[in-house]
């Protein structure tokens, strides 16, 4: 009986503390990646830039290699494809962490 009373007191104390914001609410631990883009629009924008960034790096590298080795468009084609794949990989890495939870 006495124990039960204590329990109810503890429960009431806890709820009162929570009401006045004295206890820290346990925040669900999110991955920092997910936390950085909570809104869907931000995520979509981030996925877009990740994809574009891969392609930009690939094309830039292919362009420079072609320029340097005087092989017109061979490296540009190869590196554009590789860069596009790298962009897809970036997006995959970004989205995969969201799927787990």
């Amino acid at each position, binding site marked *: 009986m006495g124990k039960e009373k204590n329990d109810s007191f503890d429960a009431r104390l806890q709820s009162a503390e929570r009401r006045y914001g004295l206890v820290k609410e346990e925040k669900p631990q999110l991955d920092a990646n997910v936390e950085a883009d909570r809104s869907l629009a931000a995520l979509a924008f981030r996925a877009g830039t990740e994809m574009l960034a891969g392609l930009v790096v690939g094309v830039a590298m292919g362009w420079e290699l072609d320029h340097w080795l005087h092989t017109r468009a061979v490296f540009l084609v190869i590196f554009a494809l590789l860069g596009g794949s*790298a962009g897809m990989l970036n997006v995959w890495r970004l989205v995969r962490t969201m799927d787990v939870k």
Partner: protein
Amino acid sequence: MAGGSSINVLEQFELHPVLGGLGEALRFSQSPLYMIAAVCLVLAFLYFGMRPAAVVPGRLQAAAEVCYEFIHNMAVDTIGPEGAAFFPFIFTLFFFILAGNYIGLLPFSFTFTSHIAVTFAMAFMVFLLTVVVSLKVQGLRFFAHFMPDGASPFLAPLLIPIEILSFLSRPVSLSIRLFANMVAGHVMFDIFASFVIMLASFGVVGDVFAIGPIAINVALMALELLVGVLQAYVFAILTCIYLREAVAH
């Protein structure tokens, strides 16, 4: 903003020499001027905020302490105990970008974060730091990350270049994100402001309808205040994530 019916929305991003003859001689444009202003603003905020050094902080001191603790927690929570070593760098980066974004929202001012040269320079600095830290912590094992675990060795010629390109694309995506957000926001301001001028040429009816774009611009200002802090936060947290990968064994 140009007069007449044609309004060039990208004109606001052009660089001009400032400070008269001296600026002309030094090729000193408004971009470095506003960078210096941003640095001075942050330093003044921290200096005057922390000068009382009171046990019970006043308003400005409390604000300065909140800023300090916010970044410190972010660095330590994301990177781990080693994060404390990178805290000054991340703090500087975050407040430099934040001050730049916010100063750019003042009328007649210039947003230096709207230039990809600036954002890429910062992102490349972060990239170099992560590479140096990775090489120092992990040594040559760092290069093993470019081969995914459990993949067939026959696929290595294809997978390794893709992984390397993916790694190299980090500073690019980091810089494009900040730059594109800033440019998009300021272009929208200009477009809606130009609607007001266009409508004003239609007489009284136009004057009444011009309230619409003005209201949208007010709402956009609220959005830009959010975007300014969000992009600074994203830049800082991604720096933390990259550094966490660098210090992980």
